[in-house]
């Protein structure tokens, strides 16, 4: 078998054997895991040179804005746009009843809640972009024109409360789609059952029940959702703010009777964060669709931008009311959990509230159900992650049991750690079978986290430690597994540049700020033997390759493989090129750069190719390719007597198919764990909570980009504390109107809320990605909100089951209001 086909075989094995541990790790890591490489986007972002879709300005470009429904549930009966059309500066008004607008269109991922019509005539929540889109010379003119549109509405009854909406006599929230009631389940992922909960409760020494209420919170992506459409003849040129650009292209290609993929030029400028959020909603691509129609009719580029308020209409996948029943033994072993959640507007497939307890504990009897209830609010989508609900339940179950028994919650955690109802012996067998080193991830995370947090000195009986400043002191602990291990495909290519031998990584992806570009460059550098500064990745244009989405959260376990495959194949190609005759022409060919050697005799380090047995025989990659980089084979140099070499372009691609964690047909055990610690002070007079310390310990399997991982830890902690104690979208029950759709009335954490945050990275290598990696981006912001509850309980000795835990809820719990 030739070396090349061996490499191909290895790649195929890696592609399809991805349920097992990495069998081909690097022996030595030079860039991977190191602290210090500067962000590739650092200078551009700090100096304001990084361009976002919001910054795109094209000659003749029109600005488009959308009508928002003033009612939570209403239908347009009649619309008069004549006054708006006469406003100077208004170029075009697209109406919901335009004959070209289809009744149904491919508008993205989860078009269950909304009609998948680009511009609907019926609103199912207040603020829904619908009815009309105005294109004008400026956003201000478009906005003014919207105010001149006269509409006759049919106002319909509406629901806001999920329990009330699940009553058979409740008005229908979405009669166009759901005639039979407001309860809808996909029936795939919404129920986890193993064992027999009744048996589990019978075996228990004690049984407790509690209810949790979680108000909706939203994404608040800094760059407002937007896009630009420009027709170049029959070719579409698009700038898009979207977390899944290449997937969006897949939908766009079906529009207008079909646009060939090769006629869609997609730009993905820097993205002002999405956190999932808006990307999942169908009016996102609906806006782009309208821009495309108006652009064609006006023959001008059209930029659509949604307002800051419009960006508030969406909720997280934990909004709802939870009913939980737990049975447990006196020693802290949990025997059964039964959980039901009335979840609001899950357009994303809703997960069971007990999904995590199923995946990471030995609890033998579990029964969980998510009832997805439609109400007239924006849709709930994955924001940072769709696992908010399961981690909230896990945190409350473990800590409630510990509190009932007067035990340290860490002890309860270790007594229940396991997987799919089995104990650690079973889980360790799975680790062995899958080729991993057997390590106790939770113990490692806890030991390191406890030491840094000084848990043993900090934890105390609830409501017993008053500080000199008069506040009550409390600490909380929670844990779960590292779950981010997506299923999907990624394609990445690498090209060695002519003339200087630098490497360019190719693949369109959404740069949401997690610095994954550096991570991929680090893998390329180590695998190819190049210096990190010689590798660059610009993901903002479409070279025909794309990374797996979501690009910012959990895809390293897929894209990491793809880039590694590409790098390994390319390295082989370089070494073959360096040892093969070059410039084959009619007159013959030239000697190899390294004569009388075979590829396996060579290696590359620090961007220099050398002979392993005689490192003095070396040539930098730059020198190697520079000799190939003339204006053409032998052109104008032969007569100078210079023997120039010429080889094929040094280019390779890698692709990877990952079965992954989210594929319900291929479940696999989760081995990596995470543990988090929080310290709070509670002012019992005002109810204010001060978070004074957080420690995150995450077993990421293997650290690729250390500063990026730490960034996800402290950044996630900040977002998490914000969600836990501040964030709540409030609707007026009388009118259904959102009351706090701005950054003054909807509170998010500022720098003044920040406390010291400890970031511990554990590396057990037990992830399914290359080098044993598992994603971290979704974890901390998802888990930390729940952590606030046990910390506050430890401070005041009373459970608060309503989130966010605001001062009024603290005072209510204390019986002061």
């Amino acid at each position, binding site marked *: 078998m030739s070396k090349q086909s061996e490499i191909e075989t290895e790649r195929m094995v890696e592609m399809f054997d991805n349920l097992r541990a990495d069998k081909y790790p690097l022996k030595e890591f030079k860039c991977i895991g190191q602290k210090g490489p500067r962000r590739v986007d650092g200078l551009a972002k700090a100096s*304001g*040179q990084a361009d976002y879709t919001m910054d795109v300005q094209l000659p003749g470009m029109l600005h488009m804005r959308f009508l928002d429904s003033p009612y939570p549930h209403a239908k347009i009966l009649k619309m008069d746009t004549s006054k708006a059309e006469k406003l100077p500066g208004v170029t075009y008004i697209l109406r919901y009843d335009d004959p070209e607008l289809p009744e149904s269109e491919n508008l993205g991922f989860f078009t269950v809640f909304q009609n998948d019509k680009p511009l609907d005539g019926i609103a199912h929540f207040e603020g829904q972009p619908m009815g009309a889109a105005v294109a004008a010379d400026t956003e*201000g003119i478009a906005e003014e024109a919207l*105010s001149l549109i006269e509409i006759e509405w049919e106002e319909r009854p509406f629901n806001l409360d999920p329990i009330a909406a699940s009553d058979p006599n409740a008005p229908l929230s979405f009669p166009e789609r759901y005639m039979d009631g407001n309860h809808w389940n996909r029936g795939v992922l919404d129920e986890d059952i193993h064992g027999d909960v009744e048996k589990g409760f019978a075996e228990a020494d004690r049984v407790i029940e509690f209810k949790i209420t979680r108000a909706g919170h939203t994404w608040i992506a800094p760059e407002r959702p937007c896009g630009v459409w420009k027709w170049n003849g029959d070719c579409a040129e698009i700038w898009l703010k979207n977390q899944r650009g290449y997937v969006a292209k897949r939908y766009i290609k079906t529009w207008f009777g079909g646009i060939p993929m090769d006629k869609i030029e997609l730009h993905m400028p820097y993205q002002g964060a999405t956190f999932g959020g808006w990307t999942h909603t169908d009016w996102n691509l609906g806006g782009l669709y309208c821009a495309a129609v108006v652009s064609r009719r006006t023959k001008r580029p059209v930029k659509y931008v949604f307002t800051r308020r419009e960006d508030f209409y969406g909720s997280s996948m934990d909004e709802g009311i939870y009913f939980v029943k737990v049975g447990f033994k006196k020693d802290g072993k949990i025997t059964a959990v039964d959980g039901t959640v009335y979840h609001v507007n899950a357009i994303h497939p809703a997960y069971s509230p007990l999904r995590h307890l199923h995946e990471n504990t030995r609890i033998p009897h579990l029964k969980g159900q998510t009832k997805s209830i439609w109400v007239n609010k924006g849709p709930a989508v994955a924001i940072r992650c769709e696992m908010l609900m399961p981690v909230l339940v896990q945190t409350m179950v473990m800590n409630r049991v510990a509190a009932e028994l007067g035990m340290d919650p860490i002890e309860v955690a270790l007594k229940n750690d396991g997987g799919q109802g089995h104990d650690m012996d079973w889980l360790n067998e799975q680790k062995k079978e899958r080729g991993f080193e057997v390590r106790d991830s939770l113990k490692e995370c806890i030991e390191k986290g406890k030491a840094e947090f000084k848990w043993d000195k900090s934890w105390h009986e609830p409501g017993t430690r008053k500080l000199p400043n008069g506040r009550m002191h409390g600490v909380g602990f929670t844990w779960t597994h590292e779950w981010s291990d997506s299923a999907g495909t990624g394609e990445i290519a690498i090209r060695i540049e002519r003339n200087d031998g630098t490497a360019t990584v190719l693949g369109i992806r959404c740069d949401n700020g997690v610095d994954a570009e550096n991570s991929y460059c680090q893998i390329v550098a180590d695998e190819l033997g190049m210096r990190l500064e010689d590798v660059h990745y610009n993901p903002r244009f479409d070279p025909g390759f794309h990374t797996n989405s979501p690009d910012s959260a959990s895809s390293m376990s897929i894209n990491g493989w793809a880039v590694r495959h590409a790098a390994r194949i390319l390295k082989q190609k370089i070494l073959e090129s360096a040892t093969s005759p070059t410039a084959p022409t009619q007159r013959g060919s030239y000697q190899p750069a390294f004569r009388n050697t075979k590829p396996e005799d060579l290696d590359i380090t620090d961007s220099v190719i050398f002979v392993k047995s005689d490192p003095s025989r070396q040539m930098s990659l730059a020198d190697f390719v520079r000799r190939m980089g003339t204006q053409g084979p032998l052109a104008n140099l032969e007569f100078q007597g210079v023997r120039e070499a010429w080889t094929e372009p040094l280019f390779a691609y890698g692709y990877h198919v990952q079965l992954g964690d989210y594929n319900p047909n291929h479940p696999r055990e989760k081995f990596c764990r995470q543990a988090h610690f929080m310290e709070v002070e509670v002012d019992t007079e005002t109810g204010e909570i001060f978070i004074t310390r957080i420690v995150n310990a995450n077993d990421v399997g293997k650290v690729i980009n250390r500063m990026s991982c730490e960034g996800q830890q*402290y*950044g996630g902690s900040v977002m998490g504390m914000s969600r836990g104690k501040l964030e709540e979208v409030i609707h007026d029950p009388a009118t259904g109107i959102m009351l706090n759709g701005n950054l003054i009335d909807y509170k*998010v954490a*500022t720098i003044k809320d920040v406390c010291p945050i400890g970031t511990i990275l554990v590396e057990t290598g037990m992830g399914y990605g290359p080098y044993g990696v598992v994603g971290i981006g979704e974890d901390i912001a998802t888990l930390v909100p729940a952590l606030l509850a046990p910390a506050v309980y430890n401070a005041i000795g009373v459970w608060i089951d309503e989130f966010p835990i605001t001062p009024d809820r603290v005072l209510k719990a204390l019986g002061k209001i």
Partner: protein
Amino acid sequence: MPLLRGRVRCRRGVERARFQDAQGARPTRPRGGIRLTINKSKYDLNVEPNWTLYYLIHDVLGLTGSKQFCDRGECGSCTMIVDGKPVLSCMMLAIECDGKTVETVEGIADEGHPLIEAYAKHHAMQCGYCTPGFVVTSKALLDRNPDPTGEEVVEALAGNICRCGTYPQHVIAVKEAAAKLQVEKAAGRGQK
């Protein structure tokens, strides 16, 4: 199902008026001539009375470093330094800036201010959209207080929102930039 019929205005009036002003609504009054200095360059401009400073600089002049995160003075991303003070450029009318000196993130980068390198080095950014606002606010702080304490940095940046949660790094980056400026000053190469 009860039917309620009636005409309503599509948008809330106050928000609309403010938004129109902020986004360069149609001219209602004659343009006004202003002279101002932006990043050491002198400009002689005709501006609409309702243009904000942000709209003038970002949309009309094309200096796109300043960002608009909110649209009403809530986030700090559009911060510029006007006559030495950090202002929210979405809340200031361009026509008020006659005779004033404006400094944007582009100008701060052009002068090689150590904040830029410190921000990149310490990952005081993730998505980066709010970052220029932080840099400008920090520059204004260092101009008036060359050696701020951590608390003073926090106080100065309290009006800037970063949704990615990079706050801890800003204190590190600003203090490092301050230290570098101190060294440069001591070496007689201090920047203005």
